[in-house]
């Protein structure tokens, strides 16, 4: 990544989790932030990801209704089989 001087919107989508986990190399993180600085779409996407992580992070297992938990587990198992 470091040999490039910029990254694309698609690369922002691919890297966003690592960016939020502070897992990117400094040079890549810098290119990521430069892109987000000029791209309103990616800035919005990053905001949405932050909001989602923040919201999901506040939900405990006990707060998920049993029927919803069953649906989620079924969907997850089917997704793994597909």
């Amino acid at each position, binding site marked *: 990544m470091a040999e490039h*001087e910029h990254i694309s919107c698609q690369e922002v989508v691919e890297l966003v989790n690592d960016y939020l986990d502070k897992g990117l190399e400094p040079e890549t993180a810098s290119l990521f932030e430069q892109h987000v600085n*000029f791209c309103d779409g990616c800035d919005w996407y990053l905001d949405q990801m932050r909001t989602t992580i923040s919201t999901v992070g506040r939900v405990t297992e006990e707060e998920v209704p049993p029927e919803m938990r069953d649906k989620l587990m079924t969907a997850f198992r089917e997704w793994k089989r597909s």
Partner: protein
Amino acid sequence: MNAYKFLRADGTGVFTRFAWPLPGDTPGAWVQTEPDPCRSGIHACRVRDLPYWAGRVLYEIELDGPVVEHKTKVVAPRGRLLRRIDGWDDDFRAAFTRHCADRAHELARAGGIERWEEVIEPSIPEGPALLSFVAARIAEEAAGVEAYHAERSRQAGWIADRLRLV
């Protein structure tokens, strides 16, 4: 060392959303973190870095402690905002955007890359960060990565000359 820092219009960090202590008649309070480029630390721009990070409001910042020089930024453990750069206002942002758009047209025509022409004018409402990038990308496509850096350097010179930044 003294450097520059862009913030959002509400005085928060562009990426961290940290609410910076703003300067008034005196500098803002010191802010301290552990320096680690792009992970933590006080991030700031040298003059040559300004076009990469063009934002809403610009401050001069005093950095303290070991400063890590990065390709397009500097990072230090401590910093405080000294003063707002009043010249970096909406009019200046618009003028820099227009300058970059004109330069982008010039580079596209000179490089025979007409397809960029369709991108330039519609991008103007997005502001200086995008237009400066577009101009640098056209320079790169026409003449390689060195031209990208040369265009960024040229943009920094344009800003520094008009705002008298050193």
